[in-house]
C-alpha cells in the first residue's frame, strides 16, 4: 500500500497543481496523523538520540555529543528544504536520483498533495528521517571528531548519500521498481547510517587510550531516558510510514512495540547469563536493536514475526557490540554500526522472510511462498552498503581536505571536547 501511495505521490508531483484533484484526495485523518508522526520523529533526534548517545559518551564529551546531534538536525532540516527533498522525491531520473524541480520547494503549494496528505506534511515527515539518519552516524565518531568537520560531513552526506538512497527506495527509484521492501527505513536509515559510521570510524582512527583506559559512560540514566524517547518517537517513525491512519498503521504500531520489548528482554537475559549482571545500558541497547530490526518490516509482518525479529535483534546486537567488535578492533564509540548496521541488516532480511500478504498485500516473503523476495532484500542491502561505504569514504576525504583534518588536537581530545570546543561543561557537581 505504501508503494502504491508513493507511486501516486510521484505521479502527482509530475502533474501541474490542480485544485480539483487536491480537494478530492485530501484525507484529514491521514493528514492529522502524519503531522503528529512528524513531530514524534522530530523528537527522536535532538531529544532521544542526543540523550541516548550523550549518556554513553564520556562525561567530558557529553555536551559535544548533544551539539553534534543538534547541529545535524538543524543542517539536515535546512538542506532538505533547499534541495534534499527534490533529490529524493523530485521527478525520477533513470531510477538513480530525483530531479531538482523542487529546489527550494519550488512548485509545491498549500494545495499540493502527496497521496492523501499535503506535500508540505510529506516533505516534513521525510525531513525528520534525513535528520535522524545523519545524526545516527555520529555514534561511531564521538569523542574525537572536529566540530567543523562534522558540519561539512553532514552537509555533503545528506546531499550525496541520504537523498539518493531515499530516492531509490521511496522516491520511485530502482530499488522500489525492483520490489525491495523497506517500510520505514531499514536500508535507507539504519544500514545506511551504520555502514557510514563504520567507515568514518575507520578513517578517524581509534580514540586515545581505546582498549587500555576505562571509558565510563557519563550517565546511563540519560541513556535510558533517551532510549524511552526514541521508542516513543518510533511509533511515529514506523506507524507514520504508512502515510495514512489505517489498519496497516495500527499493525505497524503493534509490531514496533512488541519487537522493541522483545529486543530489550533478550539483550538483558543474555547479558545476565554471560556477564552475571542485567545492565540498564543493555536493556536500553536492546530496545533500540528491536526497534531498528522491525523498522523495514513494520508494515508487512504480524505479531508472532515481530517477536522473533525483536528476539534475534537483541541477541545479534549484544554479540556484535560485546563479542565481535572487540575482536575486530575498530573503535565504533557508541556502536552505531554494531546496533544500527547489524540489526538493520537483520531487519531487511527478516522482511524478506516474514512479509505477510494478509497484513499488507504489497509484501510477500519467503515464508509465504515468495523466495525471490529474500534475494531482492539481499541485493538492496548489499547495494546500499557498498554505495554508502564508497560514498562516505570519498566524502570523508573531501571533508578532511576542506577542514584541514578530521580529528581534534590530541590535547583537546584528552581535556575533552565539551571544554576544548564549546567552552562549557555538562554538569556542575559540587
Amino acid at each position, binding site marked *: 500500500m505504501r508503494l502504491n501511495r508513493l507511486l501516486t505521490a510521484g505521479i502527482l508531483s509530475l502533474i501541474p497543481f490542480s485544485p480539483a484533484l487536491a480537494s478530492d484526495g485530501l484525507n484529514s485523518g491521514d493528514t492529522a496523523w502524519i503531522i503528529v508522526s512528524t513531530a514524534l520523529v522530530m523528537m527522536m533526534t535532538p531529544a532521544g538520540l542526543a540523550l541516548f548517545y550523550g549518556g554513553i559518551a564520556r562525561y567530558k564529551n557529553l555536551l559535544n555529543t548533544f551539539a553534534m546531534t543538534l547541529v545535524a538536525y538543524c543542517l539536515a532540516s535546512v538542506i532538505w528544504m533547499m534541495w534534499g527533498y527534490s533529490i529524493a522525491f523530485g521527478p525520477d531520473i533513470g531510477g538513480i536520483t530525483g530531479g531538482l524541480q523542487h529546489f527550494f520547494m519550488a512548485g509545491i503549494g498549500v494545495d499540493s498533495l502527496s497521496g492523501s496528505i499535503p506535500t508540505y506534511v510529506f516533505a516534513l515527515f521525510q525531513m525528520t528521517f534525513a535528520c535522524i539518519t545523519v545524526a545516527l552516524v555520529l555514534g561511531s565518531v564521538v569523542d574525537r571528531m572536529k566540530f567543523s568537520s562534522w558540519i561539512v560531513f553532514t552537509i555533503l552526506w545528506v546531499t550525496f548519500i541520504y537523498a539518493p538512497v531515499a530516492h531509490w527506495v521511496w522516491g520511485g527509484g530502482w530499488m522500489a521498481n525492483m520490489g525491495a521492501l523497506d517500510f520505514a527505513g531499514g536500508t535507507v536509515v539504519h544500514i545506511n547510517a551504520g555502514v557510514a559510521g563504520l567507515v568514518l570510524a575507520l578513517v578517524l582512527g581509534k580514540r586515545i587510550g581505546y582498549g587500555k583506559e576505562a571509558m565510563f559512560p557519563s550517565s546511563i540514566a540519560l541513556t535510558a531516558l533517551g532510549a524511552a524517547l526514541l521508542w516513543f518517537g518510533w511509533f511515529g517513525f514506523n506507524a507514520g510510514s504508512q502515510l495514512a491512519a489505517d489498519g496497516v498503521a495500527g499493525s505497524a504500531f503493534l509490531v514496533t512495540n512488541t519487537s522493541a520489548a522483545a529486543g530489550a528482554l533478550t539483550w538483558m537475559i543474555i547479558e545476565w547469563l554471560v*556477564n552475571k549482571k542485567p545492565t540498564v*545500558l543493555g536493556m536500553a541497547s536492546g530496545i533500540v536493536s528491536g526497534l531498528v530490526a522491525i523498522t523495514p518490516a513494520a508494515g508487512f509482518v504480524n505479531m508472532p514475526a515481530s517477536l522473533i525479529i525483536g528476539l534475534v535483534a537483541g541477541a545479534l546486537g*549484544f554479540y556484535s557490540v560485546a563479542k565481535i567488535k572487540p575482536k575486530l578492533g575498530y573503535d565504533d564509540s557508541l556502536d552505531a554500526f554494531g546496533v544500527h548496521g547489524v540489526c538493520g541488516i537483520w531487519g531487511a532480511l527478516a522482511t524478506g522472510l516474514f512479509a505477510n500478504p494478509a497484513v499488507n498485500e504489497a509484501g510477500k516473503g519467503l515464508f509465504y511462498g515468495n523466495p525471490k523476495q529474500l534475494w531482492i532484500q539481499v541485493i538492496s542491502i548489499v547495494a546500499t552498503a557498498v554505495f554508502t561505504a564508497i560514498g562516505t569514504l570519498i566524502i570523508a576525504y573531501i571533508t578532511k581536505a576542506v577542514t584541514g583534518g578530521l580529528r581534534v588536537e590530541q590535547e583537546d581530545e584528552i581535556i575533552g571536547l565539551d571544554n576544548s570546543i564549546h567552552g562549557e561543561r555538562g554538569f556542575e557537581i559540587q
Partner: protein
Amino acid sequence: MKKIEAVIKPFKLDDVKEALNEIGIQGMTISEVKGYGRQKGHKEIYRGAEYVVDFIPKIKIEIVVEADRVQQVVNCIRESANTGKIGDGKIFVIPVEEALRVRTGETGPDAI
C-alpha cells in the same frame, strides 16, 4: 598527643561518629577518599567493555587525642565500623608534635 587516622566504609560514618560522641570525643575531621586493599576493586561491564574500578570510595576520619585515650578511641572505632566483611578499613596511630587553637593561641592538650 596522637593522631588517629581511620579509613572506614562510608555508610558506617554515622555509627562511628555517634559512638565517638558517646565516649566524649568532641571533634573530628573527615574526608572522602578512594583506595583499595585486600578488597580490591570491582568490575563494570558496558556493552562488553570491561573496566576494573580499582579505587573504592572510603571515608577517612582524623582525630587528635591525648596519648592515654588512644586505646579507648581505637576500640570504639573498631567496634562501630565493623561489619565483619572484607573492606572494613584500617586504623593508624601517629604521634603529633604540637597542636594550636587558632582563635586563642592555646597549645598542647588544651588546644585539642
